[in-house]
């Protein structure tokens, strides 16, 4: 068989291939030749063949059949063979192939070879791909070589040791004695690798770290070496662009960082040298900047004094002005990490950071944006917001969502005035309206509701905004909601903040209808628009017929959500017209639930939840205090106050017991009887969340408290059973059971309760609204009472139901609560 071609020939041949297919053909032919050559056990040319195989492997072709050949090469005596063999082993083998274990013996022999280069090859291979078994077997050899005086081998042994430690952490102690003298070397290569070894040991094991800090006095040694590097004059062999061995300097700084973290003594010892490095290093080239960057990171991490920290941040500020993008990127990333701790120092560089927003590079823009948000505070909010809004206008789409959320958050925290806040929101909605996150819409709506005096201004601006363009969904949703709520203010033209516009009712309805019809509107937006139109039926006077028509049209819409709404609203017009105005009244000021950030869903305003079929549209809750409601009046005394309306009063799935919520404020978390039990969990006001939210509804302890009959009349009996909460001793859980001993069912049963001012009450959903006759079943409902002052529990209850064809209603007072239920 002719001698196999040289590697060079192969490469030349492959390069002449014009197509992928040609190349593949050539390689396949050559592979076949190599394979037959391997089979013939040809010693002379094995080296050449394996070299060719490695080249083909690099191009991406399978080369696993060469693995054993590599092992044979390693076992050969010639240096050339060994070289290629080890290279092949590193490229083709790794710990997943079983074959690699066969190398162990060869490596062991080579580690003790007379020629240092062979030893070097063995160390290199072990250090690159040694598996844990190999490392375990050969660690002793490596440790021996770590103590040799040959610097070429010593540095390789050090890195090999690092690899061994990574693979088999238990062997770390074995290398400890050898490390004692490592730092006394003159050779920079050995110094460098020793520092790497020490770093690895310190990072892996806190015991080692403590040991090195105390016993070895590592810090003074490192400081000394670093000082020599800086102070020594020009040394040609280690010089890189005028700085003496920057790689070693950077490594030492990193090790100092690990040693100084959380340790006062070590940090003390290195303060001076850090200051020296920071001030003396030249910054004209990348090299100097690399060292400074490492110094800054170290200063930030250890317990340095404040002067040093300010110096570090100033260095970062200088980096920001550098022309090199890499340097600016690195500076922004570090500033982001330190802005929490050294806020004031970073503020000084605010203007530079804001300038970076205008940079062309995407990653710099992103980091500048994040940093800008972190720097916003009450003093600079106006200026910063201007810059950020300008950025929002001009940035790439991938930033717009984050930027918008950030702006909302910042505006919420630091808005100097309500008008400014609303203006900012409007600006964001109009410029980046389609990128705003979904949960921003309810947040905004809540915000707008809460700024009562701005309603007219807000609705006017929103109206003007969607007049031209109603494609941005979040904007349209907010606008539709506002127009629905405050449409009367819009047509009456009473805006103080700016020039009132003349709008007729028809024009308003026009725009809402076009939103409904438009192809660009999503289902959710259409829902908003329809509800808004409905609400306007009570606020507008002359266009009620038009509204009725629109609503009835959508009663046959294909979209199930719209259809359902339209049908219900239709029913509102027909059967329940007397209730329409009460239902569609203005929303009250919503309770502010804490927001955690842009991703927190605060409260839905009811539009986005699918509702079970039977339910009525969301009622508007009552005005907080000016509407005395029936129950209050009946209860008479001023010592009884309405119960805090629980959070989403506008949940669509409410009104299960049909009329439950209409009478308002003494309400009672009003969830429908058919809704799953999980719904009430979400709506619990904060005070009850502490004790009971994550625990089963009925907490243990308890029993031992006798139950009472709270009401018994006309065949209807209501019993109270009590439980005390384990975790919150001022909470009492009362379960009521209503039973009916008459011969006819009681339907549409509604239970309501009121308690004195010092208590708080929450009513959960009843199990059903029908009390079956002949005591065949009961309605169960849970009441939670918060009694922080441990006063005697009193309650007034109101019952309404239909019995024998007529509507019945009754009031009663319950005073016979057992003492254990409230003490």
């Amino acid at each position, binding site marked *: 068989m002719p001698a196999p071609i040289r590697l060079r020939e192969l490469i030349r041949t492959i390069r002449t291939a014009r197509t992928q297919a040609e190349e593949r053909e050539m390689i396949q032919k050559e592979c076949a030749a190599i394979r037959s050559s391997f089979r013939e056990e040809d010693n002379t040319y094995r080296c050449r063949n394996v070299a060719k195989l490695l080249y083909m492997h690099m191009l991406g072709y399978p080369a696993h059949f060469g693995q054993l050949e590599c092992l044979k090469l390693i076992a050969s005596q*010639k240096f050339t063979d060994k070289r290629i063999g080890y290279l092949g082993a590193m490229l083709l083998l790794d710990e997943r192939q079983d074959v690699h274990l066969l190398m162990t013996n060869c490596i062991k022999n080579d580690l003790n070879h007379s020629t240092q280069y062979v030893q070097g090859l063995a160390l290199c291979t072990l250090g690159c791909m040694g598996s844990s078994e190999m490392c375990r077997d050969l660690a002793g050899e490596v440790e021996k070589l770590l103590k040799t005086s040959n610097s070429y081998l010593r540095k390789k042994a050090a*890195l090999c040791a690092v690899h061994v430690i990574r693979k088999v952490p238990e062997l770390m102690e074995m290398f400890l004695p050898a490390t004692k003298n490592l730092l006394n070397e003159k050779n920079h290569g050995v110094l460098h690798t020793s520092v790497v070894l020490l770093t690895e040991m310190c990072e892996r094991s806190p015991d080692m770290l403590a040991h090195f800090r105390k016993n070895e006095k590592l810090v003074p040694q490192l400081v000394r070496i670093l000082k020599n590097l800086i102070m020594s004059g020009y040394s040609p062999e*280690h010089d890189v662009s005028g700085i003496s061995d*920057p790689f070693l300097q950077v490594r030492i700084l990193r090790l100092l960082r690990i040693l100084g973290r959380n340790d006062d003594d070590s940090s003390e010892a290195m303060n001076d040298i850090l200051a020296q490095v920071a001030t003396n290093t030249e910054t004209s080239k990348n090299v100097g900047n*690399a060292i400074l960057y490492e110094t800054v990171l170290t200063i930030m991490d250890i317990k340095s004094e404040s002067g040093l920290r300010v110096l570090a941040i100033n260095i970062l500020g200088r980096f920001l002005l550098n022309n090199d993008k890499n340097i600016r990127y690195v500076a922004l990333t570090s500033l982001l990490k330190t802005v929490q701790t050294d806020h004031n120092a970073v503020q000084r560089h605010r203007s530079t950071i804001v300038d970076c927003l205008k940079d062309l590079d995407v990653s710099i823009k992103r980091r500048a944006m994040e940093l800008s948000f972190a720097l916003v505070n009450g003093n600079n909010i106006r200026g910063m917001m201007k810059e950020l809004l300008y950025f929002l206008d001009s940035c790439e789409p991938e930033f717009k969502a984050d930027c918008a959320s950030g702006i909302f958050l910042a505006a919420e925290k630091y808005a100097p005035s309500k008008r400014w806040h609303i203006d900012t929101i409007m600006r964001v909605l109009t410029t980046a309206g389609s990128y705003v996150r979904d949960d921003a819409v309810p947040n905004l709506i809540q915000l707008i509701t809460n700024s009562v005096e701005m309603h007219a201004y807000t609705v006017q601006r929103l109206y003007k905004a969607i007049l031209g363009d109603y494609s941005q969904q979040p904007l349209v949703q907010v606008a539709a909601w506002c127009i629905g709520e405050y449409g009367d203010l819009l047509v009456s033209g009473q805006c103080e903040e700016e020039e009132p516009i003349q709008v007729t009712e028809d024009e308003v309805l026009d725009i809402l209808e076009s939103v409904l019809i438009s192809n660009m509107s999503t289902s959710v937006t259409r829902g908003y628009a329809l509800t808004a139109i409905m609400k306007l039926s009570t606020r507008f006077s002359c266009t009620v017929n038009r509204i009725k028509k629109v609503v009835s049209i959508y009663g046959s819409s294909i979209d199930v959500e719209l259809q359902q709404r339209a049908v219900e609203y239709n029913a509102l017009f027909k059967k329940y017209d007397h209730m329409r105005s009460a239902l569609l009244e203005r929303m009250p000021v919503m309770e502010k639930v804490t927001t955690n950030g842009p991703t927190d869903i605060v409260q839905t305003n009811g539009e986005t939840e699918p509702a079970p079929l039977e339910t009525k549209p969301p009622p508007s809750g009552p005005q907080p205090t000016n509407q005395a409601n029936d129950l209050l009046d009946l209860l008479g005394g001023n010592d009884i106050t309405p119960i805090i309306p629980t959070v989403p009063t506008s949940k669509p799935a409410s009104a299960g017991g049909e009329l439950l919520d209409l009478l308002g404020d003494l309400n009672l978390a009003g969830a429908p009887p058919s809704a799953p039990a999980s719904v009430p969990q979400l709506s619990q006001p904060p005070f009850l969340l502490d004790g009971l939210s994550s625990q089963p509804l009925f907490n243990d302890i308890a029993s031992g408290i006798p139950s009472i009959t709270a009401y018994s009349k006309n065949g209807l009996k209501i019993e109270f059973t009590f439980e005390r909460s384990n975790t919150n001793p001022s909470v009492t859980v009362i379960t009521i059971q209503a039973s009916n001993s008459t011969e006819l069912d009681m339907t549409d049963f509604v239970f309501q309760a009121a308690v004195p001012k010092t208590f708080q009450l929450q009513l959960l959903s009843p199990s059903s609204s029908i009390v079956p006759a002949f005591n065949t079943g009961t309605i169960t409902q849970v009441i939670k009472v918060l009694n922080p002052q441990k006063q005697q529990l009193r309650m007034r209850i109101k019952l309404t139901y239909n019995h024998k064809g007529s509507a019945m209603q009754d009031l009663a007072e319950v005073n016979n609560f057992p003492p254990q239920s409230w003490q």
Partner: protein
Amino acid sequence: MIKAILIFNNHGKPRLSKFYQPYVSISPRFNPCSLLLIGGSDNKLIYRHYATLYFVFCVDSSESELGILDLIQVFVETLDKCFENVCELDLIFHVDKVHNILAEMVMGGMVLETNMNEIVTQIDAQNKLEKSEAGLAGAPARAVSAVKNMNLPEIPRNINIGDISIKVPNLPSFK
């Protein structure tokens, strides 16, 4: 720790690939793609572009980014010294030598030696060792290097012995 070192040209052809962590190769044809699998949350790609080649180092957070930029520079300068005005063709035809040089600089993902002269000295010594083993096949190569290293003494232009003056003709030099 350096996870991988890659060199490729402007068209994406790999000229050198060295991985310090076992990687999962989804398709043996496309080395650059399998690199992306390595990039986890902690890893960064640091690269420098020289003429037609991209030198890419994939590192994790324990390496200083600016330091790696300098390391790439040192690597390229070393290649330059070893190959004399290195160009892409040198890397193509002498992949194994490039691997050997790299092995002197980075071992097991960690920087071993950054002093250019030191590296070049070691590489030269190892190459000499190889050549000494080459046997008959290496004879022409040995002859060439022998002549290169030969120090021819300065040929005198004029030889003056007493009254005789001989002008030495200009012979072609054997450098």
